[in-house]
């Protein structure tokens, strides 16, 4: 039994990492007052760029950087449209997502089934020998270790730095920025692009560290899950981290049970991650909206 718990939690970290990067990126954008439904698209272009550049250069690190750039560039389309052209955030986000899907399907065909170097698990010395926790947390790929730092770092940055303050102000009271001579549009745009870059890193992690393959549409909705996670984590990075692992655990439960021959309704297991999301949203109800950045609430209502 404890063995099952360890496997599910290990799988939670394995499967939750890509979602966490995307959700942290979405947190950045939303804290600045912009909803980016194009996150799924940024993950996809990040996955393809990550895999393709790793294949071409032989370096998964170059792939990871390319994933960040590609995710950021796609998010730039969203930023330009919603921040400067003031287009509808939801319609634009969905269109950007389809743009990412179309672009990757067009340029990705050459990389389906192609071999590329990827990130392999590296056990952290000493820490990986700690009973239970060692296996759950410290026998992963290097990008996963980076993700352990990403959430606390983002939390600290938003809370304690001038940059973080400006970004939050753009999301709460953009007018205040105007008064002080800042351009809220620029700050929002930068937040959306940086968020897209994080989603791109998530996609690259998915392709080069987790699945070790590129395939059309391989993110399979994980970008949308990231968006809903941000809402139920009430825009707080550390809760986003926890939520990503919760979702990862729900995804990991089915294969862990099946590999033991334990019979549960397969279709129910597959629906579990989504049921959990819905349940949490239902429990929190309008309370989630009260935690929303002021400017974002205008988008929603």
């Amino acid at each position: 039994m404890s063995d099952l718990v360890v496997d599910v939690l290990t799988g939670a970290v394995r499967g939750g990492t890509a979602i966490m990067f995307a959700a942290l990126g979405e947190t950045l954008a939303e804290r600045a007052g912009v909803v980016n439904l194009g996150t799924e698209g940024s993950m996809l272009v990040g996955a393809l760029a990550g895999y393709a550049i790793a294949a071409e250069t032989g370096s998964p690190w170059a792939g990871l950087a390319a994933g960040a750039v590609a995710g950021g560039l796609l998010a730039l389309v969203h930023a330009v449209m919603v921040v400067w052209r003031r287009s509808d955030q939801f319609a634009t986000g969905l269109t950007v997502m389809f743009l990412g899907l179309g672009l990757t399907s067009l340029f990705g065909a050459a990389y389906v089934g192609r071999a590329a170097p990827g990130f392999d698990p590296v056990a952290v010395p000493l820490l990986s020998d700690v009973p239970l926790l060692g296996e759950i947390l410290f026998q992963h790929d290097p990008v996963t270790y980076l993700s352990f730092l990403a959430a606390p770092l983002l939390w600290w940055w938003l809370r304690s730095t001038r940059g973080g303050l400006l970004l939050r102000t753009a999301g709460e009271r953009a007018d205040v920025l105007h008064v002080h001579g800042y351009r809220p549009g620029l700050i929002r745009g930068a937040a959306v692009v940086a968020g897209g870059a994080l989603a791109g890193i998530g996609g690259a992690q998915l392709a080069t560290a987790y699945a070790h393959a590129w395939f059309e549409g391989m993110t399979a909705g994980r970008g949308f899950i990231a968006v809903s996670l941000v809402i139920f984590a009430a825009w707080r990075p550390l809760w986003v981290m926890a939520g990503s692992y919760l979702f990862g655990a729900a995804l990991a439960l089915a294969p862990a049970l099946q590999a033991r021959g334990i019979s549960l309704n397969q279709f129910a297991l597959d629906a579990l991650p989504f049921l959990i999301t819905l349940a949490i949203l239902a429990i929190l109800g309008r309370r989630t909206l009260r935690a929303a950045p002021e400017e974002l609430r205008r988008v929603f209502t």
Partner: protein
Amino acid sequence: MRKPLLLALLLPLVACSANTTGTATTTSGGTAAPGKDSAAVGFIFVGPKDDYGYNQAAYQGSQEVAKAFPNLEVITAENVPEDDNAARVMNSMIAKGARIIFATSYGHLDAALKVAAEHPDVAVVQQGNLITTAVPANAGTFFGTVYEPVYLAGIAAGKATKSGKLGYVYAFPITQTIDNINAFELGAQSVNPAVKTYAVSTSSWCDPAKQAEAAANLLKQGVDVITQHQDCTATVIKATEAAGKFTVGYHADASAIAPKGWLTGSQWNWGPLYTDIVKTTLGGGFTGSKYNANFRVGYKTGENPFVQSPYGPMVDEATKSEIDKARELLKTGSPFAGPIKDQEGKIRIPEGTVPDYTTIEKIDYFVDGVVGTLPKA
């Protein structure tokens, strides 16, 4: 057989725009032999033609038809969903002069039968499914007995395993897959009676992240040979190879990405069968031919379009000769020759019975030795 959600949302738009000419189709009288002297032949695929799997193999088959009949126009359509849009795409092909249509995915059957009913002069053949009602004069299904080479590969797996645990990553519990999982276990059992096959479903024809999780969990449980029934196969193979375990392939020869652990596998070769179907139909002989039915080929007839992949370096001569012997037996027998017990130990096919292809395609239980549960419909 893969249907990504987003593509499914997008493609109706594509299919609609391709259909503008399709509505003007006229049907000639029912007297002409379906497909006779057709100027074109149409192929629809559910996925992309370069998926290194099921759809790519079908596409290659269509290109062999083009080579065999240089005067025949070969029209192909990729990413055709398994719903009414398939009928529209087929109709637009008919409008372009195709009177022979290949619908190559399991879920294309309903649309194929609909098109066949509307166009008595068009021969519509469907790959992989089964017509359960009376077969119309201008329709049919065809398939190879995929589970036969899978049974042979199971022998290689049963010989190679040290832990006695085999893993099977699959998508959905359709009969084709159930037959494959059962045949794999039965093949392994034939040389290693205590062996178990752990079946894990991903509920998707291609979700590499779910495949990675399935493979990780199987490996953790001590499984040391993994095979799969997925449309994209690289993720599971790479995970298995990285763990230093054995791979049995499906759809294509992937030994290049598993140079150490590759045992063998099963792969498609549709060209000869497609070509013969087209030849028969062009000559006006479709109705009443073997293709105007649920046509199945296997080792009995020696023309199975599903063939065994080359061996990897770890397969020894003793194993190869076991497999050769079994292949001979399949010419008269079946992987499902009785007695076959289900997971509860109940005899489902009695001793001495060699079930026919149709019976095998209706098996809806896992055999004894498979670990895992089929979802109840």
